C-alpha cells in the first residue's frame, strides 16, 4: 500500500498548492447544466482576458455545486482572502470580478452568494448561510463543484479511496457489518436494504460474481446521478470497489445512459486514473482482490433501469425484464450472482467505511438513515441539486431551500419519484420525506426527482403526461402493462380533450389496480401511481373536466377557447396577421373577432396582442382568464 501513500502525499501537496495558492484561482462550474447556462462562454472570455493581459491566474473546471438557478457559478480564490462563490456569472460578470476584485479590491458583494472559507469580508455572508444551503447536509455531494473531477489527486486529497483501504483492512465480513449497521437503503427507488442484497449474493457459491452500477437515470425530471458522476466520479467508483470487495465480485459494469455524454467521458477518464494508481486489475495493492470495470452505454430504453432488463441489455439483448425470483443476487448477469446498485447508493459507501456506521446514522429518520439528494425543479424559485437528511419535511424543501413558488403563486402539489411516483398535494406539505411516509401517501421516494407544481398545472394533464411516457416505454412483454397503460392513456386523453364521462373515473381506477397488481416488473407495477394519486387527491379536477368541460389551470387546450375583448381591442390587426388558420377577422381599427369554428387554440393571438391592449382572453367552462395586464390605458393617442 506504500504506493498509494505516496500518491496521498502528492495529492495533499497539489491540493494545498491550489488552496493556499499564491496566484488567484477561478473555479468555474462546468457540468452539463453549468454549460447550458453559459459556463463555456464564461471560460472562453476569462481565458482570453487572462491571455491578452498576460495574467498569472489559474482556471479550474469543476462540477456542479448544486444551486442551478444561480448558474453559471464561479468560485474565486484570491491569495490572503476567503474564497468567494459568485452566482449568475456571465461573460461580462466574470471580467468584472477579475478586474474589480482580483486585480482591484472591490469584492463585488452584490454578485456574491457567500464565502466558502472563513475570514472577514464585509457584506458577504457564509455560503452555508445562504437560504438555499442552510438546511442542506452535503455528504455525498461534498466534493461536487469544489474539486476538478478529472484530477484524481483532488479526490485523493479529500480522503479519496481511504474508505476502500479501510475495507481492505477490516475485511469483507466487517465491511458488510458496517453497511448493515448504517441502515443504508437503495437510493434507486424501492429502498431495499443494501446489506441484505449483498448477503444474499455472498451466500451463493460461485467463482464469478458481478457488480453493476445503475447509472441509467431514466426518470424524466431527475439529474442527481448525472451531477454526482460529472462532479465527483471517483466517489462512485470507490463505492464500487468497496461493494465488489465485500461481495467477492471480480467484474463490474457501469450502465450509463447515452444522453449523458459528459458523465460517460468523466467515467472513462476516472477509470483510466484508477488503473494508473493500481486500483483496478489483478491483486489490487497486494490484497488478493482483483477487479475489472467496464462502462456500458445505454441505448435509450427507460425499462432498462429495471434490474433484470438492465442485465438483458448488458448481455446484448432486448431490454426486457424477467420474472423474479430468481433475483439477480442469486442468478443475474450470464446466470451468475449479480448485485445492482444505484449511483448514489455507491456514493454513500466510502463515507460509511471511512467515518463508520454510527456517523452515518446520525442523519436521517428512524427507518430512513443518511442523507438523500434531490433534483429540485418545476415551479420553484431556487432550482437545483440538493442534499438533505432524510425525514426533513416537504415544506422545508419547498419553502426554505427552494424559496417558494415562482411568482408567489399557490403550491398545488409536489411530484416525487417520476413516472413511478405520485403527486403529493399541498395540504400534505408537512409530510416527512422518508421511504415509509412517501409510500403511505401513495408516492415513492424514487431516485430523487422532485417537481413542484403550482396552480397553473393541471393534474389530469400531469397524469396523462406520465402515462404517455410509461405507455411508450412499456416493453410490451406482459399484457397488464402493455394493454393497461394504453387503456389508461386513452381514457386520460379523452378526459383532457373534454370527451370524458363520469364512468371513466371508476374504469380508470380499476385498470390502474389491475396494472399495479398484474405487471411483471417495477415499470408496470408503479406506472399507475400518477393516476392513482391524482385521483385520490385531485378527483375534483377530474370531475370538473368531465362535468363542466373546464380545465381551471387552463392547460388542456381542447377545453379552452380564445376570445377578443371588444372593449379593449383597437383593431391593430397584429393577431390576425399571425393567426396560422386565418380565424381572426375585423375591419381596420375596429374590434376583431375569432371564429371559434376555425380556431385551433394555438394561442399565438394571445402572445401577440400588444400589452397596451391586452384584449385577448381565454375561457374554459365557467372561467375567464385575462393573462396579460394592460400596461397603459387603451387610448393611444
Amino acid at each position: 500500500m506504500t504506493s498509494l501513500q505516496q500518491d496521498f502525499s502528492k495529492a495533499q501537496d497539489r491540493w494545498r498548492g491550489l488552496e493556499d495558492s499564491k496566484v488567484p484561482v477561478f473555479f468555474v462550474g462546468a457540468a452539463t447544466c453549468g454549460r447550458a447556462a453559459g459556463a463555456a462562454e464564461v471560460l472562453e472570455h476569462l481565458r482570453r482576458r487572462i491571455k491578452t493581459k498576460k495574467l498569472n491566474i489559474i482556471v479550474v473546471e469543476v462540477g456542479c455545486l448544486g444551486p442551478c438557478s444561480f448558474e453559471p457559478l464561479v468560485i474565486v480564490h484570491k491569495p490572503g482572502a476567503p474564497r468567494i462563490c459568485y452566482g449568475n456569472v456571465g461573460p461580462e460578470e466574470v471580467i468584472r470580478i477579475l478586474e474589480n476584485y482580483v486585480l482591484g479590491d472591490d469584492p463585488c458583494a452584490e454578485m456574491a452568494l457567500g464565502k466558502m472559507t472563513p475570514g472577514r469580508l464585509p457584506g458577504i455572508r457564509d455560503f452555508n448561510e445562504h437560504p438555499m444551503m442552510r438546511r442542506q447536509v452535503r455528504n455525498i455531494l461534498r466534493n461536487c463543484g469544489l474539486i476538478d473531477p478529472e484530477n484524481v489527486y483532488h479526490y485523493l486529497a479529500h480522503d479519496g479511496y481511504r474508505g476502500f483501504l479501510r475495507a481492505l483492512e477490516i475485511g469483507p465480513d466487517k465491511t458488510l457489518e458496517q453497511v448493515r449497521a448504517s441502515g443504508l437503503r437503495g437510493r434507486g427507488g424501492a429502498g431495499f436494504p443494501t446489506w441484505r442484497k449483498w448477503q444474499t449474493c455472498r451466500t451463493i457459491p460461485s467463482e464469478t460474481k458481478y457488480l453493476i452500477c445503475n447509472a441509467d437515470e431514466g426518470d424524466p425530471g431527475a439529474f442527481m446521478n448525472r451531477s454526482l458522476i460529472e462532479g465527483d466520479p471517483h466517489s462512485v467508483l470507490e463505492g464500487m470497489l468497496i461493494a465488489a470487495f465485500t461481495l467477492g465480485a471480480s467484474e463490474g459494469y457501469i450502465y450509463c445512459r447515452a444522453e449523458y455524454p459528459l458523465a460517460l467521458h468523466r467515467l472513462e477518464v476516472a477509470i483510466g486514473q484508477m488503473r494508473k494508481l493500481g486500483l483496478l486489475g489483478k491483486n489490487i495493492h497486494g490484497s488478493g482482490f482483483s477487479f475489472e470495470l467496464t462502462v456500458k452505454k445505454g441505448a435509450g430504453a427507460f425499462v432498462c433501469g429495471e434490474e433484470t432488463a438492465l442485465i438483458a441489455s448488458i448481455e446484448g439483448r432486448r431490454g426486457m425484464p424477467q420474472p423474479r425470483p430468481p433475483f439477480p443476487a442469486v442468478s443475474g448477469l450470464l446466470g451468475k450472482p449479480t448485485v445492482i446498485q444505484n449511483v448514489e447508493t455507491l456514493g454513500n459507501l466510502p463515507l460509511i467505511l471511512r467515518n463508520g456506521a454510527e456517523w452515518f446514522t446520525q442523519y436521517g429518520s428512524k427507518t430512513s438513515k443518511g442523507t438523500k439528494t434531490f433534483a429540485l425543479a418545476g415551479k420553484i424559485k431556487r432550482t437545483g441539486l440538493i442534499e438533505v437528511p432524510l425525514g426533513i419535511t416537504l415544506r422545508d424543501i419547498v419553502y426554505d431551500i427552494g424559496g417558494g413558488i415562482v411568482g408567489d403563486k399557490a403550491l398545488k402539489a409536489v411530484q416525487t419519484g417520476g413516472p413511478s411516483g405520485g403527486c403529493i398535494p399541498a395540504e400534505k406539505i408537512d409530510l416527512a420525506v422518508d421511504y415509509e411516509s412517501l409510500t403511505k401517501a401513495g408516492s415513492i421516494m424514487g431516485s430523487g426527482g422532485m417537481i413542484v407544481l403550482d396552480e397553473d398545472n393541471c393534474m389530469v394533464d400531469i397524469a396523462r403526461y406520465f402515462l404517455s411516457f410509461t405507455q411508450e416505454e412499456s416493453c410490451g412483454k406482459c399484457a397488464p402493462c402493455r394493454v393497461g397503460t394504453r387503456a389508461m392513456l386513452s381514457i386520460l386523453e379523452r378526459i383532457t380533450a373534454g370527451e370524458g364521462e363520469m364512468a371513466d373515473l371508476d374504469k380508470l381506477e380499476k385498470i390502474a389496480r389491475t396494472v399495479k397488481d398484474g405487471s411483471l416488473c417495477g415499470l408496470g407495477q408503479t406506472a399507475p401511481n400518477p393516476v392513482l394519486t391524482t385521483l385520490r387527491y385531485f378527483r375534483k379536477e377530474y370531475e370538473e373536466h368531465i362535468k363542466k368541460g373546464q380545465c381551471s389551470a387552463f392547460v388542456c387546450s381542447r377545453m379552452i377557447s380564445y376570445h377578443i375583448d371588444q372593449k379593449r381591442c383597437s383593431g391593430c390587426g397584429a393577431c390576425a396577421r399571425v393567426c396560422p388558420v386565418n380565424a381572426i377577422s375585423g375591419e381596420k381599427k375596429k374590434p376583431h373577432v375569432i371564429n371559434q369554428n376555425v380556431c385551433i387554440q394555438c394561442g399565438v393571438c394571445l402572445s401577440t396582442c400588444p400589452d397596451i391592449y391586452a384584449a385577448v382572453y381565454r375561457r374554459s367552462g365557467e372561467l375567464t382568464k385575462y393573462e396579460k395586464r394592460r400596461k397603459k390605458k387603451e387610448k393611444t393617442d
Partner: protein
Amino acid sequence: MKKRLSRITDILARYPAGRGNLIPILQDIQGEFGYLSEETVEELERLMGISANEIYGVVTFYTQFRFRPPGRHRIQSCQGTACHVRGGLQILKEFEKRLGITAGRTTADGKFDLERVACLGCCALAPVAAVDGEVHAAITAKKVSYILSQYGGEKGRKKK
C-alpha cells in the same frame, strides 16, 4: 476512404467475440456511418453469427438506433417532467413550426433532425433543448428561431 465492410470489421475487432457486445458494436457502427442499414445488419449476421431477426429485434427495441441518414444538426427537444410543466411542449411545437417537420423527421434540405427526448437531465434550467449535444437553457418560443439561426437554419421559413 476505406471500404465500408472493412470499417465494420475494424469496429468488430475492438470487441471480444460473442454476442454480448452487440449493442456497443451497433452504437459504434451508427457513430461511424450515422445510421444503420439493411446491409449492415446482413453483414453483422454473417460476421457475428447472430440471426438478422435477432439483430432487428435489438435495433428496434432501443430508441437510439435509426435506419435513416441523420440531418446535419441534431435537435433534441426535452419533454422531461420539469420541461413539461414549464411549457416544453410549446417549445417542441415551435421547433416543428419553424422547421416545417414533425418530431422524428429530418428537414427536406437535410439540415436538421428534430427529436423529442425523455429527459436531458438539466431540469433546473427547464425548458431545455440540445443542438448537437449542446444544451440551451430556459428556452422561450421566441428563442427558438434565434437558436436555429445560430446553426444557419430557418431563413424566413415561417409558414404563412
